[in-house]
């Protein structure tokens, strides 16, 4: 045995953070659209403030959801219910945010309420949906895919049932302000910052990674795994609820068809951002970049006036490419998996 083992340094030589490669993809895509823009349209893609604002605005809602979904994916789970929870929250929150102008308000006696009421109700609906997801997963042994699939279908149904399919419109100005201007972007970035800190610097974050990395080892280490999963899914539900509030505020109405397929975009953003569906890996910074990549692709294709069909086809390709990259990274991490 060598006796000359020195204390290991805390940090090795500076490594590139894992987000660096995704950031390069984002920049590469942006520059590609810039180049194509000059080639075919003789305009700049990036030097257009309005386009950039719209681009970020469009993906803010996806981004807010993706921050919750990233945490779920880090635990090794999945949340398919986000899009439906957006719709249900939008309906409930909007119904409590109607102004005196509303012709047939959902609750005639509850109009012109202070903005805090619909917001609190929306967040509570999201929390309830998340709590349901979490309880199903933590207390029974059904896989997260199935539990959240069930909640996805039921929440969509509830959203339609709530007003028998009628949209809820004519909302108070205070409520509509939540979705106006750069407010959604601010909410997105503030949420990202909060959960970036939570994942990196709190016990909550350490436990989240530990459970996703090896649930059995986490349990043996004394972590109450079911209770923690409950917390993670509830947080994801609250963030879906927040996304529903922003969506209905932006549209100044609540509609049962809102948030369709948002769950898949959010999962895509997380996976493109480096979260591993096998659990234990993922960062909020990566998810934010992944969200922006989705935004650049959508906005870039619209800019080039490419048909929406092609947009979807390419988006699918990007998601698959991101997962393949994840496989390679995982194999590189565990040398024994190769040989």
């Amino acid at each position, binding site marked *: 045995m060598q006796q000359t083992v020195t204390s290991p340094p*805390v940090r090795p030589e500076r490594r590139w953070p894992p987000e660096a490669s995704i950031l390069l993809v984002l920049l590469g895509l942006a520059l590609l659209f810039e180049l194509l823009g000059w080639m075919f349209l003789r305009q700049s893609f990036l030097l257009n403030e309005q386009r950039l604002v719209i681009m970020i605005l469009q993906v803010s809602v996806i981004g807010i959801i993706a921050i919750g979904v990233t945490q779920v994916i880090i635990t090794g789970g999945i949340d398919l219910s986000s899009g439906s929870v957006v719709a249900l929250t939008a309906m409930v929150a909007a119904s409590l945010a109607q102004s005196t102008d509303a012709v047939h308000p959902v609750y005639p006696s509850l109009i012109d309420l202070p903005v805090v009421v619909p917001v609190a109700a929306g967040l509570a609906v999201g929390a309830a949906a998340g709590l349901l997801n979490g309880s199903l997963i933590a207390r029974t042994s059904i896989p997260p895919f199935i539990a959240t699939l069930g909640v996805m279908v039921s929440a969509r149904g509830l959203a339609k049932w709530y007003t028998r399919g009628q949209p809820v419109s004519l909302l108070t100005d205070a409520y509509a302000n939540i979705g106006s201007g750069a407010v959604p972007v601010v909410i997105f970035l503030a949420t990202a910052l909060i959960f970036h800190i939570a994942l990196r610097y709190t016990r909550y974050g350490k436990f989240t990674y530990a459970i996703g990395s090896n649930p059995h080892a986490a*349990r043996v*280490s004394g972590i109450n795994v079911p209770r923690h999963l409950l917390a993670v899914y509830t947080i994801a539900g609250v963030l879906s609820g927040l996304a529903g509030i922003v969506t209905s505020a932006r549209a100044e109405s609540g509609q049962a068809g809102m948030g369709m397929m948002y769950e898949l975009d959010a999962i895509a953003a997380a996976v493109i951002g480096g979260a591993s569906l096998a659990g234990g890996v993922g960062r909020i910074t990566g998810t934010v970049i992944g969200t922006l990549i989705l935004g650049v692709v959508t906005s870039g294709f619209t800019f080039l006036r490419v048909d929406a069909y092609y947009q979807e086809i390419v988006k699918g390709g990007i998601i698959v490419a991101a997962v393949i990259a994840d496989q390679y990274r995982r194999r590189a991490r*565990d040398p024994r998996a190769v040989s």
Partner: protein
Amino acid sequence: MGAIRARDTRDALDLPRPALTRMHLEAAHVPAGYLLEVRHISKSYPGVAALEDVSVQVGKGTVHALIGENGAGKSTLMKIIAGIVTADAGEVRLAGRTLTLGDPRRALESGIAMIHQELNLMPSMTVAENIWIGREPLKALGMIDHRELHRRTHLLLERLQIDLAPEAEVRSLSIAGRQMVEIAKALSYESQLLIMDEPTSALGEHDTAHLFAIIRELTSQGKAVLYITHRMDELEEIADEVTVLRDGRYIGTERPGNLTREQIIRMMVGRELTQASPHGRAAPGAVRLAARALTLRPHFHDVSFELHAGEILGVAGLIGAGRSKLAEALFGVTPASSGHIWIDGAEVRVDSPGTAVACGMALLTEDRKETGCLLTLDVLENLAIAALNRDFVRFGFVRGPAVTQACADMSRRLRVKTPSLREPIAYLSGGNQQKVLIGRWLLTGPRILILDEPTRGIDVGAKAEIHQLIAQLAAQGAAVLMVSSELPEILAVSHRIMVMQEGAVTGVLERAHADQEKIMALAAH
């Protein structure tokens, strides 16, 4: 049997048959009638020589038992013969022909079939489908001919006097039933040599007798069986010859009738008992952990013991004796269904690992990779995770500098060899991973340490360091329960030794009065 075989399996199936036929023709030239000759096989894994120059001959129509301690190399040798593991040197000859090693399919086609200890059946498929998987009789258009499949299975099972329905789902069968399906499957390949890895470990008396009847029937037809077992009492009943392996080396081959049980144990254990304990008897402290009548069927039952502060209690026994399950029950991973646990004189209900940690317990699990390491995370995070449950956290925030300092100190104390604390734990060697996992628990300041196979699969140097560490922790007052399958380790480290056999405690020995023979006598059947 021969007629059935020709009509049903080969001709109908269009199986590759040349290997077998040629061997039968050449069998006349085989000297001394050996069916299987294993010659000078060596195999080493990084840091461990699993087999060194082992040679074994198995005669036609005989049952050849292979015995040895856990880790003696029995399973590795079996796997080499069955083509699952590639040998570094040496050759295997079947009926005089040298086999291509390292190809399980070729071995099967040449007439060698292995029945694994962990059965490899598909539970949701029927008996017939499991037996003939990949070789199903087909109708036109590639459809499976189920009628023919069942008829063929029926004949095969009847021939073996196995009472199972071809269309029964495997999940509905008992362990014994599944074992029978495996045997039928192996024989459906018309194997000349059947390798059985502890086939009776999960069988009751009745099923064991049935299995032996089948084995006798097979040997009467000239087939041979290579049989791994831990059970002394089976040797005389079923084996024609016994070969003993120890530490990867060939010790000897004898007829079971020529050896006493004590002689066999001595051959298995072998070493001179010079590995004196590196420590004196600790001054017996107060009883720190006590258990009474702990039971979790079918794993263990009526286990009672006392563990004192400053004491190392070794738990010896064969694989499957219930030791790991006992460790897990004490720690609340799978709580015992009945019985009592006291810590420092107060009765506690340990219903989850969280409770155990709160009681000052620590569990180093048996399987480093499956239940220990957080493989996607780095050394620092792996060290800190258990301690985060109690210390190092203020208002939910991890006290980064304090944690880093404590982990750096622990890493230095345990001499973990890693480029940095930010190195992914997956890149560390097994010994260093184990040190990190021990460090994880030491950071919680445990008063009771449960160690399950603390040095399995790690190199000699790290092993010695871990042994010293265990002794040091006990000297500082920790109570240590150490499960180990390595008798030298048990004898070198423990103050007292508790021996388990089939879920029950068969004896507790003081270190001064214990030796390997005594332990084996208590552990084996």
